[in-house]
């Protein structure tokens, strides 16, 4: 048993670290850790820098343009990016639709879409959730009626993050209304410029326009843009949702926040001297450090098991990573705002110009507020507990 990385793995980590140091644009670096979401331009810029190095699609097989990383390398790569932090390669493209296309797509679809997905020439968003179908995704009602070589799509999607900047949407639609819930669903790729698509912003409590409602009104989608067989979309969606979840704990992101909280606290005088002497603060830091260490090792254990099983099936234990990962992201964001104190109050970015304290604390509130979504999106904590109870404990 050996928990430490091998020499090769450490060399790889150093290589990634050096690459980030040398290639992350200065303007993006300046925002790092101070924003809840990077802008599209930042994501694209960094994504393309990675792609030029062959690293944008870190867990794709080499044959489809991936770098051929081992599971441990993938983990190291992701954590180094989070720890910096850099923007992340667009998950919708890299973790979601890409693997669906190279696993279930036709040769023509692979030829048309794969390299553009990888390089982020086309930005994808995810059209899954609907107002009546959140955790109960299979209750979706957006319909796709076949007319010749086209589907006519009608319905409404919600929580469609980045839809307002996306070129394409991968989308679950109901192609057989008579079939049972999970059956009769198909998986379409929809060009966002198609007439009949309306994107309405949803402003979240962090003040950001990150997500949207998408209305589909007689939207015509070529049948050629359907992935796989008609009415089998649920299978592809399940594959997509189970895919590559070892990075889901995002330990590096939380570690970065704890580090920022401690360095912010160093400059703050409280009741009993520097805030770094406050016992309540110290205790919260230490308890978070312990939780994150446990989570990191749990992630490595799951990776190790996957490496040995090597069957590519999702491990229900990765629900632990999503569950505790989201909680520690929230706890670290909360800690950051707690340290910022009253200096974290301004929403107005210009205030940063006003004074040292306000500038130092910038973004703390938005990061805290943005982090509340971590236990809701991508399979809520309740869903993760259901998965553990049923999938692992057999309850």
């Amino acid at each position, binding site marked *: 048993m050996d928990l430490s990385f091998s020499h090769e793995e450490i060399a790889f980590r150093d290589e990634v670290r050096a690459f980030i140091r040398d290639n992350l644009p200065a303007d993006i670096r300046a925002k790092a850790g101070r924003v809840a979401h990077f802008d599209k331009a930042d994501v694209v810029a960094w994504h393309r820098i990675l792609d030029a190095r062959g690293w944008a699609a870190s867990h794709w097989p080499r044959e489809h343009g991936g770098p051929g990383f081992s599971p441990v390398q993938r983990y190291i790569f992701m954590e180094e990016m989070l720890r910096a932090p850099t923007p992340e390669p667009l998950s919708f493209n890299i973790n979601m639709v890409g693997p669906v296309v190279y696993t279930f797509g036709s040769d023509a679809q692979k030829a048309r879409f794969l390299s553009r997905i990888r390089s982020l020439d086309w930005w994808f968003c995810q059209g899954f959730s609907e107002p009546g179908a*959140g955790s*109960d995704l299979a209750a979706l009602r957006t319909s796709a009626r076949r007319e010749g070589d086209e589907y006519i799509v009608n319905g409404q999607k919600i929580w469609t993050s980045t839809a307002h900047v996306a070129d394409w949407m991968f989308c679950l639609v109901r192609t057989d209304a008579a079939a049972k819930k999970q059956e009769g669903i198909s998986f379409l790729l929809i060009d966002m410029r198609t007439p009949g698509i309306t994107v309405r912003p949803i402003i979240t409590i962090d003040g950001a326009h990150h997500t949207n409602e998408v209305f589909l009104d007689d939207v015509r989608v070529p049948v050629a843009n359907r992935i796989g067989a008609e009415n089998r979309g649920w299978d592809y969606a399940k594959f997509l949702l189970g895919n590559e979840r070892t990075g889901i704990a995002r330990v590096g992101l939380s570690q970065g926040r704890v580090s920022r909280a401690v360095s912010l606290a160093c400059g703050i*005088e409280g009741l009993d001297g520097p805030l770094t002497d406050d016992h309540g603060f110290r205790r919260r830091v230490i308890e978070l450090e312990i939780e994150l260490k446990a989570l990191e090792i749990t992630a490595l254990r799951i990776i190790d098991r996957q490496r040995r099983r090597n069957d590519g099936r999702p491990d229900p234990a990765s629900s632990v990573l999503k569950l505790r990962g989201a909680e520690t992201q929230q706890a670290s964001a909360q800690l950051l705002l707690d340290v910022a*104190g009253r200096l974290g109050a*301004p*929403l107005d970015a210009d205030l940063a110009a006003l*004074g040292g304290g306000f500038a130092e604390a910038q973004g703390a509130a938005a990061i805290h507020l943005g982090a*509340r979504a971590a236990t809701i999106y991508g399979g809520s904590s309740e869903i993760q507990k259901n998965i553990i109870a049923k999938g692992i404990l057999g309850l």
Partner: protein
Amino acid sequence: MNLEYSTEQTLLADSVERLLSQRRATDRRAIWAACAELGLLALPFPEDMGGLAGGNVEAQIVMEAVGRHLADVPYIGCAVGPGAILGLCPETLRLRELVAAIAEGSRTACLAHEEEHARYRLAHVETRAERTASGFVLNGKKTGIATIDGVDELIVSARLSGAAGDETGIALFLVPADLPGVRMRTFPAFDGTTLAIVGLSDVALPPDALLASDKGALAALDRAEAASLSAVCGEAVGILEAMLDETVAYLKTRQQFGGPIGRFQALQHRAAEMYVALEQARSMALLAAVSVDLPDREERWRMLAAAKVQINASLRFVGQQAVQLHGGIGVTEECRVGRCFKRTAMIERAFGDTFHHLAVLDRLGGLEGRLPRTAPAQANGRAA
């Protein structure tokens, strides 16, 4: 022991509730005028200055409604705080006139005490006041001021002597906001309320601008802090109520997996825990209200610190649960619970956060004084 509202208190609660449930929260000035009409603005001021001498329970009644309706009414900064301060200042004609004008809504005043590096410590004042032949000159910066647009008068703390954190040497001044050298900048806080920063550059004041100094000034600030903490506990209770009500309603109506999600026992139990947190907060708000005027400074701050710690915990727990149980909609601006959540985060750090008040209790040997003290007692824990 008597925990029932008096007839007057019940009437007050009803009328504030009516006022805030009728008005949209957008027009702050109009709401302020309506508050004046109801007599709410006279409430925190002493009778001998023409106020209504309302107590801490009355202030909580007002703030509970403010919280329940998520109203953006700077009642604490512009009424409770000034009332507590002016009540301890010698009565003068000028103050009587000011209080009358505040009460009828024709003039406004706010407390400008907090500073960037204060971190909840009451005596941390860096702003300097120098005595001159013609009065005083003030220099410094005040932050985190809860105020109303175009406020007329600022009650400013400044230091005549000593270093930041010293309990002696602080004075309070009445500063018209339109004096030369006073620069006020308002900005939106993350919860949508308005805060202000005031820069003071060589602000010249006449001798009668001095409201109080030294022990008197510190006592007045201490009282304003205590009264404000109590009032914000009332606001917290109102927000907790709103979040619980919204969440229970949502659980009853939101359909998923073929029925309302409120039928799931896991969610029922969490709603029950939210109720418990609300009830405990209500109890501690009551404790805060009856503790503001405790004569012993240490006893007072033990109770107030304990109240704030508990209420912060309830805010955090209920806020998180309310958002989580709403799912995606809970983190949006259009959802009341999402907006409530932001307000909870602001209230948590109003008049001392949990780090601060636990440190205060730690110094004082705990709530019951069982533990050995850890440092020379600096009663309300606000000194450096």
